[in-house]
């Protein structure tokens, strides 16, 4: 995470996400998957091919791509289908876009009710016998049962969570890095899924995205760094209020 300053002098914290060897693996049509839209399987970081069975490696062999550590599905409209085997780059996203980031949160192990659910616990003194971090009552008398989903101690973290509506401030095309506003679930160097935002406020914010994706061998030659309009770039002189 890094600080970033706008032209008006405000500071924002930014997370860096690297697009490492992403390839499209397979196209699944609407009828095949049984959903409302067709799907594209996308694979992430390269990994060793020796620790998986032959059947698992079939997808990668078909696409002609080394084995990927993580495979995810994206729901795609029919006009945005990409041929399996095309690499995906950070330039697929542009500064000014809004994005949802999904990842597995940091695993905290088996945790008590105070850390996991934010319960208040009991006082430290004034006669409390062996009860300082316990949940207390778990149900009422009339219910005569404990409801399903009652907040109790258990394994915390290591589940998929999403941060919605994060602004993309900057894109580095040379190293394939996306600068995303705010914090993102997961530990450092963990694998993360980045999608266009589903929030209704950001429905019309994408002006001219590269559609269906940014192709490296295409006609467009992008500069090494793409900045949002409001970012203070370090090549400019210091900010003044005239």
């Amino acid at each position, binding site marked *: 995470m*890094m*600080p970033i*300053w706008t032209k008006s*002098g405000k*500071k924002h914290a930014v997370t*860096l996400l*690297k697009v490492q060897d992403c390839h499209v693996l397979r196209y699944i049509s609407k009828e095949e998957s049984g959903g409302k839209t067709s799907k594209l399987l996308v694979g992430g970081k390269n990994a060793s091919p020796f620790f998986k069975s032959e059947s698992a490696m079939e997808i990668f062999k078909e696409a002609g791509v080394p084995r990927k550590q993580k495979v995810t599905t994206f729901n795609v409209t029919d006009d945005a289908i990409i041929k399996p085997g095309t690499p995906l780059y950070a330039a697929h996203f542009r500064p000014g876009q809004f994005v949802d980031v999904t990842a597995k949160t940091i695993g905290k192990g088996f945790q008590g009710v105070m850390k996991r659910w934010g319960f208040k616990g009991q006082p430290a003194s004034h006669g409390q016998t062996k009860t300082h971090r316990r949940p207390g009552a778990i149900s009422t008398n009339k219910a005569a049962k404990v409801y399903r989903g009652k907040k109790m101690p258990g394994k915390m973290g290591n589940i998929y969570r999403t941060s919605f509506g994060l602004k993309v401030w900057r894109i*580095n095309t040379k*190293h394939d*890095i996306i600068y995303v506003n705010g914090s993102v679930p997961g530990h*450092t*160097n963990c694998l993360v899924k980045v999608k266009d935002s589903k929030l209704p406020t950001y429905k019309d914010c994408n002006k001219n995205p590269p559609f269906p994706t940014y192709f490296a061998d295409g006609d467009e030659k992008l500069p090494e760094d793409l900045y949002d309009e409001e970012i*203070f770039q*370090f*090549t*400019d*002189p*210091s*900010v*003044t*209020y*005239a």
Partner: protein
Amino acid sequence: RVSSDGKPEKFQPPPKPVIIDKQKQREERRFLSPEFIPPRGRTDPLKFYIERKDMIQRRKVFNIPEFYVGHVLAVTTADPYANEKASRFVGICIQRGGKGLGATFVLRNVIEDQGVEMCYELYNPRIQAIEVLKLEKRLDDNLMYLRDALPEYSTFDVNMKPMSRLDHEEVPVNKLQVRMKPKPWSKRWERPKYNIKGIKFDLPEKKMKEAQKWSQPWLEFDMLREYDTSKIEDKIWKEVSEGLKN
């Protein structure tokens, strides 16, 4: 040569010339700002490389002078609510923290009998100028104890003129021993954890001995805490100097 007696004197070889190679001395003294050195951790070195590129870019446009804890600095910041849209603060640098673009330094001064500390970010674009008014290192890396010292040690004239800079010479170390206000202090500075050499402790011997109870002499032998930065510093120094030359 003939001596005053007229007899030939014993041959005395001329004194060997002492060559002070000023060029070599200049190169030996090189200062790498502490925020360039990455902390120990599992972060990808690519992230530090990208951050350093941004830092070098900022340094090309705006000059951040070499300074240590103990220097007296004057910082002018752009302020939308000030009269001339710029505010100037003079103070002694008591702490330099943070790594990378978020590096900060804290300046302290006593203005009209009120101690004031300002924390500035080195790479904040609102900073218009940083001037070094007085060059001197102190015995410690962290001068937070000035909060509990007598106010005369933290007062600096706001209209101080910059001291004449001795170019390419070593930064002088001020071995000043600061006198403190009576206890209680904000932190127990006499404890060996803080390792402060710049205070004149007027405490009785008994208290000083009691403070030594909290010493942890095994810490200096703990190998897992060692972080040898010499090779990393060399690489980063080369990168930074090449970046600044362009």
